[in-house]
Each structure stands twice: as structure tokens, then as C-alpha cells.
């Protein structure tokens, strides 16, 4: 995995980085994610075509052994793949990211939010009343109104 390159899993996934934080929305699953600090930088590197190994090497870090950083980066990218936010691509890096030197490397964290998934789960034929979406049938478990 450390030598693979990835790209955004569009059009199911949309993303925007702002103020050092990436917001990633999976429109198919209804899950959304946040990655801050080192996670935001790595997210941008992955989208730019860096392999996990290249990304780890590009992050200069004064207080953490290189192999530990590589392990953290690989795990983070594995999580991106498992959540289907990125997919493999064949092309080489298309863009170089300014490798912001990280004085104190933070273990990259992908925060995952599932609180809006209810907006996607109703089945229009079987789970709703004659009034239509989003009126859940009364015999189904309660869901919050959108």
C-alpha cells in the first residue's frame, strides 16, 4: 500500500480544505469526516498523488522517528481507503504540495460523523407512508425529522 497512489473517490465524495481542516462528505453513505493539522496536510498530499511513503518522507519532523511517522501515515491512508474516500489511481503525482515542516508531528486522525445518515436511509417504496418521504411508517423504529 505504501507505494500506491490515490485520487478522490468522486463523484460520491466531495471535499474542501479550509483553515487547516479538511471536510470530506461521502454523499453515498451520508457519512462525513474531518481531518485537522497533520491529517489535513496528508489528505491534500494523498489527493495530489503522493504515495504514503512519499508523503511520510516529505514531512520533516523533529521529534518523531521517521519509521513511526511512516507507520502513522500508512494507517491514516488505510483508513481513507477503508472509508472509500479515495481510490487507487495509476497516474503519478500531478501536483507538488508544499511540505509544511511539522515541528511536532501529530498523529493524523480522521474524525467520522454519522449523525446525518438518517437523511439517506428511507426507502421510498417500503419505508414511507402514502405521504411520501420523509414520513417513516409508524411501525418502523423512530427516526428524527430532517
Amino acid at each position: 500500500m505504501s507505494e500506491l497512489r490515490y485520487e478522490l473517490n468522486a463523484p460520491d465524495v466531495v471535499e474542501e480544505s479550509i483553515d487547516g481542516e479538511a471536510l470530506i462528505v461521502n454523499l453515498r453513505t451520508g457519512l462525513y469526516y474531518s481531518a485537522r493539522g497533520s491529517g489535513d496536510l496528508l489528505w491534500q498530499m494523498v489527493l495530489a498523488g503522493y504515495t504514503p511513503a512519499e508523503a511520510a518522507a516529505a514531512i520533516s519532523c523533529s521529534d518523531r522517528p521517521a519509521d513511526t511517522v511512516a507507520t502513522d501515515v500508512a494507517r491514516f491512508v488505510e483508513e481513507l481507503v477503508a472509508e472509500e474516500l479515495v481510490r487507487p489511481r495509476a497516474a503519478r503525482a500531478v501536483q507538488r504540495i508544499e511540505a509544511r515542516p511539522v515541528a511536532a508531528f501529530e498523529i493524523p486522525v480522521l474524525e467520522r460523523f454519522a449523525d446525518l445518515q438518517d437523511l439517506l436511509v428511507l426507502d421510498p417504496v417500503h419505508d414511507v407512508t402514502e405521504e411520501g418521504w420523509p414520513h417513516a411508517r409508524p411501525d418502523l423504529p423512530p427516526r428524527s425529522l430532517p
Partner: protein
Amino acid sequence: MPARAGVATTAAGEADQAQFEVFLSAFHRAAEAAGAIIPVGLCIGGKRVLLRFAGPGLSPYLVPAFRHLRDDSVTPETADLTICAWDSASTGVSLPPEVGDLVSHHRRGMPDSRPLGRVLSAYRRPDPGFSMLDLDSDTGIYWIPNAASTPYEDRSGTFRAILSWWMATHGRQFVHGAAIGDARGGVLVVGKSGSGKSTTALSCLMAGFDYVGDDYCLLEPGVPPCVHSLFGSAKLHAHNIDRFPQLAGLVTNPARLDIEKGVFLLGDHLPERLISSLPVRAVLVPAVVGDGPTELRPLSSARALAALAPSTLLQLSATRHEALARMASLVRSVPAFELRLGENIEDIPGAVWALLGQPDPGQNRD
């Protein structure tokens, strides 16, 4: 209907177009059966929109939420967008099966960021009925089975699929949020359902603010960014209605509050407070704290975008890929704050007016 010059046609595109033509023909049959087409002109976000109803059955349920945006100068010749609407029960015309399988239309209407085709469709999402839009002719069609049982979501503001698709191609983005202020500027209040958007918007309305909307607004990026009004309505969960005694007698669906949010058609009661557009000066993300003072705390742009974008994108149908970028543009251009809602709802308007640096208009109004 000929394809626009320069736009490639595909077999799928031709099938979509054929379904649209069948749907449009059914509308015309419904109008003929009902004896008339009822036109209603609107100005939404500076765009001229003409609603055309097949007979008088459906318009009483759908038009009131748009009353504040009426523009009787709009004609078929001057309309930027035309929306044809009909129901089967009042016209006696069924939805023809040639429009295609409604479950597949539902799937097509799920959130998506694929490039928009020329013909778009959605069933029971985000509106309760069936929607189609032909971008080449700037014509949308909306159908529900029975006007008399129009769902409360439609009565508080409908045509969300058609309007969001069409407006997106004209630089305007549907956003899930409330907006209040006055013509000099105001705030966009964002967050998922239950976060306090409606409570904030209605408490400000009652204190003398002008009101753009409490659930959906139309964002036009720019300097300054603006929000435009879509629906002159408000919705409150039943347990929150008692917090607004001035509104309690105005709820339009009092017998159904066990299964529906209470709907208020503000254009009928407070037309002078409904405003069509507002420059955005800040984004507020309410959080129900429950005790202590109501106060504002600075919030990062990223947190504001997280409160705004996912709930917008996941409630709508297919969106253009730039939808998220438009919302990001907004939070980059104006400051964001967390609005911590304390124990007194009356404190909310003062906190917002202090942010805007303007005197509380409630002191000068009845």
C-alpha cells in the same frame, strides 16, 4: 424539443427527454381537464419564475409559502424558469407510466455530485412528489397524487429539487439554513435539524428583525455574499411552539402536530417582515446549551462549513460539483460564531444585534 446546440445527445439523454415530454403532455392534459392553467409569477433571487398550475386544485396549498415573492409582471415570455405543477386527484389525470419507474427516479434524485445532465428527475426527494427539470427549455414539472393531502413539507416550501437544480446552474446555491437581519446585512444560521436554527430565526423575527427564511435559503456568492429568500414559512417541532406564544395561534396544522412539525405561513401574518434578499455579514452555528447566558464565541471557518455543508448536501438531490466550494467561499469571506443558546430565548436577538453592531430594532417597533 431540440437539444441545445453544442450539447452532445446520448441514448440515455434521449430517453430522459422522452420521459420529460410525456410528463409535460400529462400536465397539459391535466390543465385541459381542469379547465384552466393558473399562473403565478415570482421573483426568486432576482430570477423570474412562473408557476403554472393545472386548475385551481393544487395552488392553494403550494403558493402561500411564496406569497412574499409574488411578481405579477412575470409572463411566459419573460420567465427565466417555468414550473408546471399538477395533481391527479383534482384533475383526474394519472401519472403516465411512460415517465418511467419512480423508484429509479428516486435513486437518480439521491445526493450526487456528477455533472448534471440536461434532464433531471427526483421522486420523493427532497420534495414529497415527482420532479423533472429540462435545462434546455428551463421548464420544470412537479406532480403529487392528491392536492388535498399535500404533505406539510410541500405546504411550507416546495419545488426544492427543481429550484435547487436550476438555481445551481445560475450561480445560486441552496443552503440549509435560516437568515435574519435587515437590508443592511444579517446572519446566516446553519446547523442540522434540532440545532436551534428555527428558534433563533423566530426569536429574532419576533424581536423585529427582517426574515429571509428558517430552513432553506439561496446563497449567491460574491462581495458581499447574499442570501435570497425561498419560502416565507417557518417550521417548529410541537414542543417548541409554546415558546412563541405570539405564533401559537397561527400554526396551520394544529391537528397533526403529533406527526408533523408546526407550519407557519408568515406571508399571511407578517408580510412586512419578510425580505427577499440580505447581504451576509456572519455565519452563526447555534448550540443549545440550556442554561447560562446566550453568547457568541468565535468559530473557525472549517467548523462553520461542517455545520452548513453536510446537512445541505445530504438533504438535496443531485448537486453540481461546485456546491461545496460555494459554501466554502461563504465561510471564508465572513466571520463565523457559535451561538450558545442559554436559558432565555429572549436573549437571542440582543446577541445577534450586538454582533451586527446595530441598535435593537425591537426597541423602536411595536
